[in-house]
């Protein structure tokens, strides 16, 4: 079934929407029962921007990123992605998710499918695109994440870093406009962290809009256009990395940085 916004014209339209941020959060509140984990967060992400969200554990970073593609519903506020109101009950969540890729800390590859099948599955089953075309794109993506030769390996036969790169390729196969990365290197061995970060760096260099939750400060400093520091469910401070890392204003930010740097 073709979705209006998925046609070439629709895509071009959303590209031309002009001066609105591609991801726009306004006063977002999110609770789990009585526990409020996000207490009014607003942020803007512009097309081709790379934004890193950092902060201590339990500050609601991962929850925030899951709200952006509607995996977690929010109680109050507004999230707009490429002009779609995520909090709208009438929202076509599937259309939203075709536009927003997400990569998780635990990779979550489909263990019963090979690497290339993992990449091909969503375009085949969800977008119902022709197999030949999907396979061509999947091979290109596998090459892009530098896993040529591993197409027919099962996730269990791959290292954590390789699995995570397959997971990135799998998300990219849906041709999203925005990529969300939820602590994607946190579960990896130190020696494989670098290859995953390199993949993300190349993606960012290609102009992909990226929102990352990360603990890799060096990477954030190098790649991010803007850094948001969250604590206790609010954004304490934000700014370009150079300013953020060397000249943090808020004492909470400075305390956090002194612990992790």
């Amino acid at each position, binding site marked *: 079934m073709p979705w209006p916004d998925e046609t070439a014209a629709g895509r071009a339209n959303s590209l031309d929407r002009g001066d609105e941020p591609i991801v726009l959060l306004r006063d977002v509140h999110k609770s789990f029962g009585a526990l409020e984990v996000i207490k009014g967060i607003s942020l803007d992400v512009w097309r081709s921007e790379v934004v890193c969200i950092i902060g201590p554990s339990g500050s609601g970073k991962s929850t925030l990123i899951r709200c952006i*593609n509607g*995996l977690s519903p929010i109680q109050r506020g507004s999230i707009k992605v490429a002009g779609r109101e995520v909090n709208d009950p009438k929202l076509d*969540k*599937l*259309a939203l*998710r*075709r536009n*927003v*890729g*997400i990569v*998780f800390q*635990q990779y*979550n*590859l*489909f*263990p*019963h499918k090979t690497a290339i099948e993992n990449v091909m*599955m*969503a375009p085949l*089953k*969800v977008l119902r695109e022709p197999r030949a075309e999907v396979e061509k794109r999947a091979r290109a993506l596998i090459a892009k994440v530098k896993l040529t030769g591993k197409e027919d390996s099962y996730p*269990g036969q791959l290292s954590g870093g390789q699995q995570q790169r397959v*997971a990135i390729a*799998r*998300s990219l196969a*849906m041709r999203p406009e925005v990529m969300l990365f939820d602590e994607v290197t946190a579960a990896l061995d130190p020696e494989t962290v670098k290859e995953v970060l390199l993949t993300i760096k190349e993606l960012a260099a290609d102009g992909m809009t990226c929102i990352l939750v990360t603990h890799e400060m060096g990477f954030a400093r190098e790649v991010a256009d803007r850094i948001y520091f969250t604590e206790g469910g609010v954004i304490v401070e934000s700014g370009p990395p150079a300013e953020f890392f060397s000249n943090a204003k808020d004492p909470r930010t400075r305390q956090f940085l002194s612990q992790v740097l």
Partner: protein
Amino acid sequence: MTPLAFRLDPTLGAGWRLSGLLDWRHGLALVLAFAASLAVALAQSAPPVPRPSALATLVIWLPFIIRGFLLNLAMSLLAMILATVLGIGLGLMQISPLAPIRLPARFVTRLLRNSPWLVILFVVMYVLPVEVRLGGGARVPLPDWLKATFAFALPVMGNISEILRGAVNSIPSGQWDSAEGLAFTRLQTLRWIILPQCVRRAIPPWMNWYALLTLSTPMASIFSVHEAVSNAQAGMEAAGARPDLLLPFYLFLLVLFFAYIYPIAVWTRSLERKYAVA
């Protein structure tokens, strides 16, 4: 008094004397004939040749019992197919997000899992009709073996429903997350991602239930379904209901079921080990 006191009139002359003598011999003959008839009757009631041993009797009835066992197998296979199809349906209803679907399915599953198989068998045998009338007026008979097959499918269906629910719940939630993130619908996620992973986890318990199902099919003998046990009993009956037949006949039944089930059990265990490692 002479022993021939019944010669009432000895004065009748020589002619009568002979006849009197014949009368006496006639009486003796009657006695002998009775004795002979008793002997013949006795001889006819006993086997003309030495009776066959219990083992020989078993060999005579072997094809009959094996034919019955084939019905056990047919019933077990048919019941398993039915139980699998219905059980998967019931299991999928059990994991539905909609309470009006989920709750009845959960109730039925628990009911079927926690009822004695024999009671289910009795209920089904008495509730199901002898024949089913189709729309066109055609009548499809429901033989007892078919009804019993359906009865055996029910408890296994409940257990397969539970196996499916357990297997789906054992899949890490990250699989649902990433499928959702890739814009899969719930049904697509189940069909392409969750259920294929469940198959491996579900096969060993599924085979286990098949073995139990097969072992319970002799219960159908209560309703004179001509399966192995019922045929063996008929054979023993026909061979004179001798107590010395009981052991060989029932031992043979044990061997028959064991020979079929044991390889399945061994295979199940090896699959369990294999999947536990993988």
